């Protein structure tokens, strides 16, 4: 049994600068994710799901105005973006960023070295990368392409999961990893997440708009996110209900926008 890790979010409030001054997006989020657990956060567009993901990862655009985030008791909010990643947090991004001129292979090795604090052993590393790429049905030629440059939507998402499998974080946040994927790509990506769960007892916070991905990645907990906070929690059956009823029953809360 692998070591237990806990990401604990308490009373998190987050605002973002707008032309009309700061605007509060998260209004008090409480959530605990432990190793081996899969939590699905579901909610309509504009509810603040992605803001939660970016805030935990430390994106400078978002200002934490209250609450705490800890990983195994350590204050995540006091860490820089790279320190958070080295502490064991991973964010699979909805819109992965292109980095021209930096090859995937160089990027992966640099990231692995940074996360582990030492360069990976060359022979096992090359094999690990090759195996992981093969599992995700990625052409080996990707290794020599610039990070995300000219990748299709599906390729970008597979590349995110590739990084997650290789960097072996404690807790991973998947921000709408399913959006824009066809069924085949969705299965491949889901298998990658399940592999990581099995291999290292990864804790997963899965942010999604649709229930489709939950057929392939079974959640232990489902949280409904509306207007910057969790409004209902339950088990997998809650996802089934959302599938049938949609988010309309939560629409009493205003300010939901596309």
């Amino acid at each position, binding site marked *: 049994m692998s070591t237990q890790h806990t990401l604990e979010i308490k009373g998190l409030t987050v605002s973002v600068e707008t032309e009309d001054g700061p605007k509060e997006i998260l209004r008090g989020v409480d959530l605990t994710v432990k190793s081996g657990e899969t939590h699905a956060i579901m909610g309509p567009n504009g509810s603040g799901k992605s803001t939660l993901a970016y805030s935990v990862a430390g994106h400078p655009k978002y200002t934490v105005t209250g609450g705490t985030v800890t990983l195994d008791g350590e204050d995540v909010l006091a860490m*820089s973006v790279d320190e958070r*990643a080295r502490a064991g947090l991973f964010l699979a991004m909805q819109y992965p960023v292109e980095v021209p001129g930096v090859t995937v292979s160089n990027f992966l090795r640099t990231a692995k070295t940074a*996360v582990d604090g030492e360069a990976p052993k060359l022979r096992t590393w090359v094999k690990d990368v090759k195996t992981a790429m093969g599992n995700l049905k990625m052409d080996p030629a990707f290794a020599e392409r610039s990070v995300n440059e000219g990748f299709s939507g599906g390729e970008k998402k597979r590349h995110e999961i590739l990084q997650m499998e290789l960097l072996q974080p404690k807790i991973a946040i998947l921000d709408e990893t399913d959006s824009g994927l066809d069924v085949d790509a969705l299965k491949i990506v889901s298998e990658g997440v399940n592999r990581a769960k099995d291999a290292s007892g990864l804790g997963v916070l899965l942010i999604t708009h649709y229930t489709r991905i939950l057929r392939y990645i079974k959640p232990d907990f489902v949280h409904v996110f509306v207007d910057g906070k969790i409004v209902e929690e339950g088990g997998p059956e809650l996802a089934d209900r959302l599938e049938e009823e949609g988010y309309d029953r939560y629409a009493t809360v205003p300010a939901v926008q596309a």
Partner: protein
Amino acid sequence: MPVADTLVDTDASVTDASRTTHVDPQTASAAGFVPQQSRAERAASFDIGAFPLPSGREEEWRFTPVKKLAALLAEGATGHLDWTTSLPEGVTTSTISAGEARDLGILPPQDRAAVLAAASAGGAVLVDVPAEAELTEPVRIRLDGSGSDPVHAHVVVRAGRFSKAVVVVEHAGSARVSELLSVVTGDGSDVTVVSVQRWADDAQHLAQHDALVGRDARFTHVSVTLGGAVVRVNANVRYAGPGADATLLGVYFADAGQHLEHRSFVDHNAPHCKSRVTYKGVLQGETARTVWVGDVLIRAEAEGTDTYELNRNLVLTDGARADSVPNLEIETGEIEGAGHASATGRFDDLQLFYLQARGIPEDEAKRLVVRGFFVDVIREIPLADLRDEITAAIEEELATTDYAAPIQQTPSQHASKEN
């Protein structure tokens, strides 16, 4: 070009302009000046008298600190450079007179520094690559300076028809040099010239590198400018016949106190020729200064022309200034394509966030981005050891960087495309 999306606007000290003709309001309003309407009207001559001492207001000198260059732009040179040459089998060198150099059909000087180099170098060094020779090793010429007395140098490279050659000219040490490098390539040849400027901090270098590119020939010129106080490398191309392909590339890295200027002029004077111009620069430190002026002229007879020029600058710290001026003149509508793009900006916040979110510390993330920024130009350098040497030199420059904070994401681009 997708690269433009990753660059953001920076402060007002960075200028960017693009014009389709050379009408500069500043010059136009200066009493006594009649602005040139076309790049074709710029003086080109072997006669020193055609190029009076510049004041700094002339179109071709307006970005250059000419006051610092008085000694180099005066007649009479007493300086000295040490030459080291390494020649592959079959390649010969000889000294020829200025008149003999002209008879080879070299392009005429286009500014005072170049005409002094042609007239006062005491002849030229001719590097001769015979017809159909396919060199497996590069021609290497190293010029070392060890003083501040002005010196003029003229190198002529003649590449015979169907030859294939790489010529590397390296510049190092302290010197004040005006240099003319004249390349004449034969039909169907494939010639690459790499000029590396790794001067000492006090060096001044005014260079004109020309190529007259043969019919169906390929020509590539790469400028790598890292060292020197004032360095100006002007790369010019003209075509001797149709079907030729010219690529002008540059990378430069300016620190505090450096003025690094690159100008290019592709004169599309023949039909069905192609040109690609790509210069990329990084600036760090107060008073770091770079200039890029890219002129392309598509003459009426140059039907079927395909040209694109691009300049990108990455500003790492406050107080640096990058000027970027693409100029495109088109005298015929019967072309394949013509475009230009220019963008100057700081680090892209999103790129840094992405790299840091994978555990990579900020400094290292920035080095990765800078290396990546240069890589598409550097990989065009045909020699692995030279590529490694240049990459290492850029790493050295980066090691001293104290980065400015990245600007928040307001993506915009100074890119435009014509036709």
